């Protein structure tokens, strides 16, 4: 069975309120007055731009210190990786793993997989179901990378003006926060419908077995 896309019928889904409108008759949604688009305008270009900015900042985010601990024994600068190493060495393996995944693996994986999706959409060579699943995963996990920013914020606030040590935020936090925000924005700028547009010119059939399932409880 071949799926009919709304754009083929001249219909557009309002991105704000979810109303289905005739795109030829209405420039704006008749219910909420948001501008109607069949696809997000210039979605791939905007997504690439934000993604490239995130790539550029990924290096300083991991290389620059995210916090500086000043104590009697001198100044210690911690990057994200050395923070993970510290947790690992002090015996909190589970937590070290969580921080490593959330702060190092997830951001990189996110950037790489969004690039993969963008490239394959542009090449019109898409495994649509896998791509759609990957994109949905990106939307869910992106936020968890903010973890390290919060850790630094709490540490900085607590370890202040004591005899033992003071902790200050390093420039890496700024870069890191920017990577998280930029990659979230890049994910949002991308229009997942483009995956299916690219796939339908390529392989229109093959969806038969799933077509009867419409609800799941």
């Amino acid at each position: 069975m071949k799926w009919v896309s709304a754009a083929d019928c001249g219909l557009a889904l309002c991105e704000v309120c979810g109303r289905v409108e005739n795109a030829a008759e209405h420039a704006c949604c008749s219910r909420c007055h948001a501008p109607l688009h069949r696809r997000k305008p210039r979605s791939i270009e905007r997504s690439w731009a934000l993604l490239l900015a995130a790539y550029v900042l990924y290096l300083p985010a991991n290389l620059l210190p995210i916090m500086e601990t000043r104590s009697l024994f001198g100044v210690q600068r911690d990057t994200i990786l050395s923070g993970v190493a510290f947790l690992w060495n002090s015996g909190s393996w589970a937590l070290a793993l969580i921080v490593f995944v959330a702060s190092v693996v997830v951001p990189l994986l996110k950037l790489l997989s969004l690039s993969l999706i963008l490239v394959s959409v542009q090449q019109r060579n898409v495994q649509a179901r896998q791509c759609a699943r990957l994109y949905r995963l990106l939307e869910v996990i992106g936020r968890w990378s903010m973890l390290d920013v919060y850790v630094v914020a709490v540490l900085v606030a607590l370890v202040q003006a004591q005899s033992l040590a003071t902790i200050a935020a390093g420039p890496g936090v700024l870069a890191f926060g920017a990577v998280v925000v930029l990659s979230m924005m890049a994910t949002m700028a991308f229009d997942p419908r483009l995956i299916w547009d690219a796939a339908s010119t390529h392989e229109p059939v093959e969806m038969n077995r799933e077509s009867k399932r419409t609800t799941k409880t």
Partner: protein
Amino acid sequence: MSARLTVCHECDALLQEVPQAEGGGNAICPRCGAGLYRLGPDKLQVLLALSLSALILLLLSNLFPVVGLNIQGHQVETTVFGAAGQLWRDDMPVVAGLLLATTVLIPLIEMLALAWMLLPLCLGRRPPAFVLLFRGLRLAQPWAMVEVFILGVLVSLVKLSHLADVLPGTAIWCFGALMLVLAVLSSLLDHRVLWRAWEAAR
């Protein structure tokens, strides 16, 4: 347009709408597997109650300290605002803003907007500025990160535990409860429900 047709927001497939009466659960797009909308009766009152309790919890979690430290009898505590203030003084205004926005301001705006919309809708009235607030709600949603913040607090507690006695503050429990309420809320909240209520109201 006829009300029977619906369009998947992820793959643009034109689909037949499943009748609302058909039990609970979510309608799934048969083409791409995206969750489309909730089935079953609209629970406006439940949503309103949840958003109001989220507001109260949000207030409480910012009044009380999140974590405390006891270093050689020296007690230190911090709230979210305290942490943001310290970052601000450390010449990190952007990071301070990010912290405040994602844990306090955006959830606050979100819940206020929701309560503002739901209260009149429960009484069968159309709330003023509904469209504006709804768009704001959609924009704000991805940026509220209460659950990530809680994990961040836990990680920092472990990091500090070698240095001093750490004391989880009252606010961490409030944040935990807030996280649960928000999770239930987002699983129940379907934008179609709001618009259906809006169309039914006058």
